[in-house]
């Protein structure tokens, strides 16, 4: 835990006041179309002889509107990378800029606000709050912000709900939904605030392959039709083949940065990484 964490509760109200307009900052983000840029990012666990380096000086840029897959075998550091980029975990050194803001300098209160307003999440499972119905889960980011969606946002959410086929499930509880339906709700929630970027962590890991492909199709539609930037962590070659760009990680480094690939090519390359280890 960082020292600043201890003080965040006392200061969070102040810091909310200090950074009231993430939205404005987003508007003058670099015009080069970079949504996230990471430089010299290092994450180390432990200290001394037992220290483990999970991320070893990673530098990368994610382009706005692109669907990027981050691939790698287990233990390659891909989840750690995503957690740090999403403001869920702290870096050991290096910087992460999200929409022009260096998030490694933010305290816990600001990071919380960042996740609420500017980042969307789709996890592998346990995405939804069991106590809220579908609509409650989709609207949760607004509710946490203490505001009602504007008319324009409301129209956007309505459109998402229709596109994702959730219209007649709005008052269902997560426990009444299938795995695929739950992921659709998570996607609707992630897109509802039109975040800078959506992070998806193995979003199809718990689904059968047909439902998985549907969910991947929805993600790539969101990117193509609405220009939504998406970063997806996965170790499934089929899932990665839906992405515009694929970053391969091994032992905490990026070993390949590629455009769209076929599942067979991805699988072959993954096997070659595994073989070298």
């Amino acid at each position, binding site marked *: *835990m960082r020292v600043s964490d201890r003080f965040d509760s006392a200061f969070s109200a102040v810091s909310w006041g200090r950074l009231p307009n993430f939205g404005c900052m987003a508007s003058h983000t670099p015009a080069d179309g970079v949504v996230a840029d990471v430089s010299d990012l290092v994450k180390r666990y432990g200290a001394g002889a037992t220290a483990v380096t999970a991320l070893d000086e990673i530098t990368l840029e994610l382009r706005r509107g692109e669907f990027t897959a981050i691939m790698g075998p287990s233990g390659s550091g891909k989840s750690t990378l995503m957690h740090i980029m999403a403001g869920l*975990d702290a870096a050991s050194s290096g910087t992460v800029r999200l929409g022009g803001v260096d998030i490694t300098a933010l305290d816990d209160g600001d990071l919380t606000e960042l996740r609420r307003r500017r980042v969307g*999440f789709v996890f592998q499972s346990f995405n939804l709050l*069991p106590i809220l119905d579908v609509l409650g889960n989709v609207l949760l*980011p607004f509710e*946490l912000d203490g505001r009602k969606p504007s008319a324009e946002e409301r129209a956007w959410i309505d459109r998402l709900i229709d596109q994702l086929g959730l219209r007649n499930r709005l008052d269902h509880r997560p426990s009444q939904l299938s795995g695929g339906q739950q992921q659709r709700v998570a996607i609707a929630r992630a897109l509802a605030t039109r975040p800078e970027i959506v992070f998806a962590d193995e979003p199809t890991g718990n689904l059968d392959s047909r439902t998985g492909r549907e969910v991947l199709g929805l993600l790539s539609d969101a990117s193509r039709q609405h220009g939504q930037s998406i970063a997806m962590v996965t170790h499934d070659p089929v899932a990665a083949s839906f992405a515009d760009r694929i970053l391969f990680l091994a032992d905490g480094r990026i070993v390949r940065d590629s455009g769209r690939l076929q599942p067979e090519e991805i699988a072959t390359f993954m096997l070659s990484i595994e073989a070298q280890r």
Partner: protein
Amino acid sequence: MKPSLRGQIPTLIVAVIAGTFGVALVQFDGIISAAVRADPVAGASVHTVPLLLGLAAISFIVLSLYVSGVVTSNTVATVVAGRTRQIALLRLIGSSARAERGRIAREGLLVGVIGAVVGAVIGTGVAALVGHLAVASRIFRPFVYSYATPTILLPVVAVAMTTWLAAWVGSRRVLDVRPVEALGNSTERSIPDIAVHRRRHRLALVLVIVGVVFLAAGVVLGLRFPPAVLLGLIGGLLSFSGIVFAADRVIPPVLRVVGRLVGTGTPARLAAENALRYPERSSRMTVGLVIGVTLVTTFSVTMQTFQDMLAIGARNDPQQYNGLGPIISGIVTVFSILIGFSALIAAVGLVNTLSLSVMQRTRELGLMRALGFTRRQLRSMIFAEAAALTATATVVGLVLGFVYGWIGAQSMLGGVHGHPGLVAPQIPWPIVLVVVVAAAVLTLVAAVSPSRRATRISPVAALAVE
């Protein structure tokens, strides 16, 4: 497999308090009897005092054991709900449900024995200290008393047995765990066993109806014959047991109303939803406290109404009631403290179950943090949940206690000398105030440690929990 004590600290605390209370009462009995024997002017009371004290001590020990039994079985049920995955895994690799339940009951016995023995040491220490102070301040003459009396084995054994039995009762759900649950993402099961529920609710209804008939008979007959209070007592026990059995029907509606009053912000709304999500869990958490508040309120309302009736009786027949006032208020004070101990056990139970249930929600709380819940929102959510639970228990307990207390006094004294007849129930405002303040303090105490733990949860760690 050897019993493990992990997750049994809450049960241990309850056993230690019950053991301390029981042993201290027995020791006080011994001290007072020895002091009376040492007093040359005591005369005939040498025999009557120990007898009366013994009866009073047994009543209060039984009362505290009842409350600690309810609290422990509910705590164990909460622990079992949180261990579903682990139990399912053991079932999957071939352990029988009976063996798993037996293991939890053995843990209960072990914890009960340890708690009772620790309680015996503390209780004896407290009694010895008080005895010493009483002699030093010349309340008692110096007396001869051995603290190593075999009588203290009675509360020790009773506490150990109660904990064992409560663990057995509380682990009933182990039998329903299906091996396949080891594979899913199931948290607490929400599929209730409807047939069992229906049987239990029917039994509860019968108990309440029969109990109410007895209570009414107690009030009516009490206008003529004071012994009618026994009918009232039976009616009280039956109907209250009925209410405890059907707690998952009685508590949630009250919780729903109270939950709406707690607040309208997102954290408060989520807290109310959480409290209502598993009606059984919330009922488990609050029922101990309901019993505690009901006991305290019943007793003080009885006493208040009782004193009122005595006043009326004294006006009509002054000779009979000469000098009774101070004695009665002394008894009221001592008994209130003794009943307060049962309420304390109930309060510990609520603290335990709330903190267990927050611990079992680690993953959910981590998800909330990931989605943008601030620590402050998380904290106020847990405080609101604690407040909803204690407020519900307090309201239900006050209402029940008020009714029982009035019936008790009415059936006991409606027909006593001077014929007070039917008397309006008296609300003992000081006690109501004490109960409300105690509930507020309990809310804070119960919420502090879980909310601290919850705000320390790192979203990454919580999401990684499988």
